[in-house]
């Protein structure tokens, strides 16, 4: 499975290298789009010292962890949300008869190299944040755990977003609200958002477990919203639960799939 994925990814990368000027501009552009988020944080902190009760290194830590998780999930599974395009064109039928899992083919579809840039960029921000924070090892062990859980959570959201397109063939943009919206939401401390929204992303769409809850542990902070203390260890639980939902949703989608016949 991993071998098939790597082979297909390599094929897509070679295909995109056929237009070198475009590839270079795409890579630069992708780096720049993501740099905009950092620039926004920089502009905000040029006017204030804390945002929602959190200082710059802490916000950078939240940005970095969410950024790395999202970028890895987006690189590996992000194109699942192009499913509706393939259903409309009839291309999905071809995937179903190939000797590889349809989900795998969708995930690797148009795999592109410029997404490495995004991971690097988020990792640099995370590194800078950690340099400014001096987290003791007794709490730092959570960092790799939360990044892996974050990747699983975002990947599951991508897969669910893909699965809903079996129903919403003509409205794929709805998924962006949850995928890119989730990435955008987790870049800032959840204290800036209203408490109903925080409850929703803790108990309904578990985005709070990507970085917010474990970050409270790493940063050694009390939950400003007064939610139970054990939640900060619950990321793996949330990741497994959401991945299960995603798997069931994708299977249900495939089962009810009818070709457009084109």
């Amino acid at each position, binding site marked *: 499975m991993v071998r098939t994925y790597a082979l297909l990814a390599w094929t897509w990368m070679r295909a995109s290298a056929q*237009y070198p*000027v*475009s*590839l*270079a*501009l*795409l890579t*630069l*552009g*992708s780096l*720049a*789009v993501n740099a*905009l*988020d950092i*620039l*926004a944080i920089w*502009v*905000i902190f*040029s*006017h*204030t010292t*804390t*945002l*929602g009760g959190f200082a710059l290194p802490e916000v950078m830590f939240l940005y970095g962890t969410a950024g790395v998780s999202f970028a890895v999930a987006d690189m590996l599974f992000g194109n699942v949300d192009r499913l509706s395009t393939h259903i409309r064109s009839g291309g999905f039928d071809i995937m179903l008869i190939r000797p590889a899992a349809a989900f795998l083919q969708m995930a690797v579809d148009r795999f592109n190299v410029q997404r490495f840039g995004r991971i690097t960029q988020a990792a640099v921000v995370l590194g800078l944040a950690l340099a400014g924070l001096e987290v003791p090892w007794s709490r730092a062990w959570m960092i790799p755990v939360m990044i892996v859980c974050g990747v699983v959570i975002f990947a599951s959201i991508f897969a669910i977003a893909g699965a809903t397109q079996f129903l*919403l063939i*003509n*409205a*794929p*943009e*709805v998924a*962006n*609200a949850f995928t890119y*919206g989730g990435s*955008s*939401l987790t870049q*800032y401390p959840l*204290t*800036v*958002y*209203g408490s109903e*929204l925080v409850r929703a992303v803790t108990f309904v769409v578990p985005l709070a477990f990507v970085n917010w809850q474990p970050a409270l542990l790493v940063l050694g902070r009390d939950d400003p919203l007064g939610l139970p203390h054990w939640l900060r260890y619950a990321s793996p639980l949330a990741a497994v639960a959401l991945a299960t939902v995603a798997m069931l949703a994708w299977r249900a989608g495939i089962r009810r799939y009818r070709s457009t016949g084109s």
Partner: protein
Amino acid sequence: MSAELRYPAKATSRGRPRNQVAHGPRSRHDGTLVRNPPCAVAPARAPGEAVFQLYARIAWYGFRRYSAYRAAALAGAFTNTVFGILRAYVLIALWQARPGLAGYDVADAVTFCFLTQAFIGPMQLFGGGLGMAERIRSGDAAIDLLRPASLQGWLLADDLGRALYLFLLRSIPPTIVGALLFGLVFPSSAATWAAFAVSMLLGIVVSFGLRYLVDLSACWILDDRGTAQVSLVLSLFFSGMVVPLNIMPGWLGTATNALPWAAMVQVPADVFLGKITVTDALTFQAGWAAVTLALGAVITRAARRKVVIQGG
């Protein structure tokens, strides 16, 4: 094969191998419209009126074409609303820490945020080409170059029709939700509403002018995704989408407020909020609209000699 080779004999026989587009509105009517009944323009009409009718019709078709994708437009409105809410909270946190920053109060900042979301559809802030690059790659551009109207004018009319449709479906819903959830600031006088309407129209024209240049870049590098990506970055950041331009520090603020992208978000939003003199705002936007359209016309002329019709 180059464009000229496929060009109808008539153009060359007039000794003007470069074709109609570059010749301005008059020469477009030397009989071409009359010979194409599907345009439904009565030959007896005065040229000015016929031109207006033609472009009005193209705009209407653009509107109709987009109205076939209602679900997609509503999905876009949903996403814009969600992002509006998320970004509003961040701006509220900033303005609570720094009340009165940049002459905005909290309500102004939240209104600004929902306006940026409302502009995404009509102004295509996330790129969204005109489809021309694809047509250049596929060779369909050959047909576009033969149409009885200027390529740029045709696409502009079509884009205005699209913008009107997306304004109705993607600008109004997020604004209503924003007003219900956060209480937005609305202009109090009819004059401000009118100025805002003109300002938005000019913003759409500037957006078209820039996207047209990006699309035509495909004549030179075939795959326009790279230029589209660079254009996306520029338009997101320099328009005021990411953060309001008036809170950018120092020289960055001065520079971004003078660039064409400001005409797409910051200036119309300030007109809406009454934070800018209307004449200054409209002059600034009209200036950039003229510059981008003129540049587009020059590039079209160059592209006609450059374009390679792919396939047949």
